[in-house]
């Protein structure tokens, strides 16, 4: 799904890397736990999260996540926006909750990231 479609579906504003709206992501992953993101995300996802801490951008950077949608209408700091720009990560913000935002994207065809392993077998 193109980022510009995601922007429309979530009625979102783009805060960083607006010029990258034509890139595509295949999967979505909604989570406020960066530990879980690091453990479970494999594919090219958009990350939906309510966290607005710099470690969200760093986590995305480590996993080559191309886009982050900040949910619940939270406002990221200028520092966070600058960090996203430097790393070519599209940063969106939507007033929807995690449940609603995920549901809207899923309903419109974005797939959920498959959990690739059983954490008990680490």
């Amino acid at each position, binding site marked *: 799904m193109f980022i510009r479609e995601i922007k429309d579906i979530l009625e979102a504003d783009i805060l960083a890397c607006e010029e990258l709206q034509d890139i595509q992501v295949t999967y979505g992953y909604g*989570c*406020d*736990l*960066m*530990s*879980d*993101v*690091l*453990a479970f995300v494999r594919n090219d996802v958009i990350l939906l*999260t309510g*966290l607005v*801490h*710099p*470690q*969200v951008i*760093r*986590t995305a*950077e*480590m*996993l*080559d996540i191309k886009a982050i949608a900040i949910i619940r209408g939270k406002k990221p700091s200028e520092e966070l926006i600058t960090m996203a720009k430097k790393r070519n990560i599209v940063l969106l913000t939507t007033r929807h909750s995690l449940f609603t935002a995920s549901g809207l994207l899923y309903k419109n065809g974005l797939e959920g990231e498959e959990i690739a*392993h059983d*954490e*008990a077998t*680490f």
Partner: protein
Amino acid sequence: MKLHFDVEGGEFITAGIASSKVKKTLKQLGISPNIIRKVSISMYEAEINMVIHANGGIIDVEITPENIDIQLVDDGPGIENLDLAMQVGYSTASKEAREMGFGAGMGLPNMKRHSDDMTITTEVGKGTKVHLAFKIHE
């Protein structure tokens, strides 16, 4: 090639800078994306652990044509029960770390899963040494 980093303790804003620099270096060296991803995830988890639990430390990275070796050394409190720490879901992280989305007890198992070899030596009251090794060719 050898890289050295000093990691500040409790500095949650800057945690991850060393991992970010190593990732950029590996990209410049043309290492395969899959290996870069494994190194990045493991090193970032280890660096975050160092900040959260050990009040910082030092990281030394050595890149040869065959291997990537990462040594993280701290003089923090040490890990009381390593077997317990290796269990998924077990964590002694602070409230502050949890508010940032860490401390879910996934870090050490995730590092083990993504590295080709992981060795931890730790002594309570003295510190922890983590060695992560990766083969460049899969």
